């Protein structure tokens, strides 16, 4: 069964482009609807109940994070993949913390996008190299940082760090698995766990860091 996808982007041209590409290159995903604004998106998602929402980060009226906030409580089974031109650290971290299962930039190739959609629909996380870099940086131990309140959430394990490093170096999951002598499934588990920590940790850096250091 194909993955049902809903597109949210305020640029009609971009929506049309993604829709055309996804329709032509694969049967794995099927675009069931699209929306150009926050209100329209919330109504459309509630109506279509798609598997995956491709969500633009920058939109009027609160952007992707607002759509996430409104939908997550109502229909928790819908997963979100953020898709944006922005590489600004605060945007990336914000939308992840609002509940997106992954983040890719709009320059991603269509094949890669399909892979990412399928991956999040299966409950896994999708980290672009840049997102992996941001998260590594946010979880870095730096002198003067606030004391760790919850080590289970506020620290990455060495293995998670290894996986993130390889992601940031541009490795695919399969390559990471063979590099670290673990299974792809284990890589996915590590990435999901990092995503959970990014979303739940109340680490000071995760909220402050993005604005402090405009790393982009």
């Amino acid at each position, binding site marked *: 069964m194909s993955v049902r996808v809903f597109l949210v982007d305020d640029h009609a041209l971009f929506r049309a482009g993604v829709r055309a590409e996804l329709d032509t290159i694969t049967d794995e995903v099927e675009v069931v609807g699209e929306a150009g604004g926050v209100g329209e998106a919330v109504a459309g998602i509630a109506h279509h109940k798609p598997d995956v929402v491709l969500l633009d980060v920058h939109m009027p009226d609160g952007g992707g994070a607002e759509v996430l906030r409104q939908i997550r409580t109502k229909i928790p089974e819908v997963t979100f993949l953020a898709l944006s031109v922005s590489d600004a650290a605060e945007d990336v971290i914000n939308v992840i913390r609002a509940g997106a299962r992954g983040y890719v930039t709009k320059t991603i190739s269509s094949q890669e996008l399909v892979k990412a959609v399928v991956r999040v629909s299966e409950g896994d996380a999708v980290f672009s*190299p840049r997102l992996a870099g941001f998260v590594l940086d946010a979880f870095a131990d730096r*002198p003067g940082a606030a004391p760790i309140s919850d080590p289970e959430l506020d620290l990455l394990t060495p293995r998670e760090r290894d996986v993130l490093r390889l992601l940031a*170096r541009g490795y695919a999951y399969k390559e990471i698995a063979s590099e670290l002598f673990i299974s792809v499934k284990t890589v996915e588990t590590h990435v999901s766990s990092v995503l959970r920590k990014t979303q739940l940790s109340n680490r000071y850096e995760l909220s402050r860091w993005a604005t402090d250091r405009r*790393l982009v």
Partner: protein
Amino acid sequence: MRRRRTGRVVAGVASGLADHLGAPVFWVRAVFAVAAAFSGIGIIAYGLLWMFVPQSTVAEPETDEDRKEWQQAVGLAALGIGVAVFTGLLNGAWSGWITGPIAIALVGAAVVWREADEAQRRRWKDGAFAQGKTGIVRTVAGGALVVAGVAAFLVVNDSVQNLSTVVLSVVATLAGVAVLTVPLWMRLVRDLDAERRARIRTEERAEIAAHLHDSVLQTLALIQKQSESSREVKRLARSQERELRSWLYGREVGEQPHSISVAIAQVCAEVEDDFAIAVSQVVVGDCELEDGMFALVQASKEAVVNAAKHAGVAEVSVYAEVEPEKVTVFVRDRGKGFDPDLVPDDRHGLAGSIRGRMTRHGGEVRLRTAPGEGTEVQLEMPRKTEART
């Protein structure tokens, strides 16, 4: 917070406050009325809010409830004033002879202030500065009331204390003038503020327009001219994107870089421009650009150039991580790859400019490649100074 325009009785302070607090307007009015009993605090508070809270720029739609509320409100306002006067008399702190003139002056001030609100509204509506005839009549009448109140106050007090009559009359007259001109001052201050904001907005817009014109529009023109060469179009688009990003997100450009993240971004940009490929870079952490780091950046550039020239790919990934004791850079492509043992001796790109540079500064180079498997160059440079993040 804004003073309301519909459903107001005096100046819309109570309804505005009720909107702001999310409380029923009746209770807000009742509180004002009750507070008026305590030496007129309710009245003073109302006056201050009137002064400092701007009225709302749009009229709210009127409802049937508003009419009922309005009647109620008039009753409450009358009650408040009555209570204030009555308790003043009872306490004996204010004799009737003083309270009376002050009340007259306050009513006069209210008339003038209200007229000023009206004038401002007309100005919003049709940009007219001139006051209508009724407006002038109302202002003059209000002014007259204030003058009469002040005069009465003076006459009454004249008999009480002969000595300080001159001082008292000067103070009273000044107070009267101050009360009357409050709307004028507030308008001056607000206009000044609004004008300054408008100017800042215009300047910002002009700066954005100038920048877009110099960069984006020029690039779009170039792209249209060179639309046959997809390589050139890609290069232009990529370099414009980079430029726009650094402008939007406030990264320094064109300067001598001081930090390793900026330096790496800069060399990646140079290779992108020279070879029309995409170089995606991720930098974790940051540090100052001392000697060894400079060599590291140059070696990284050399590695990216090699990938751009020989790997035959459209994209190269660069990942740099700054750790307390060392900095590591990975340059990776998924291109042809090669057999390191078969590289002819006269090709010293990797040997000389990368390995030589790195070892001179105490760094290390590791190479992973095989034909058909892409290439990854790992550059590692120890840090001399302590971690500074």
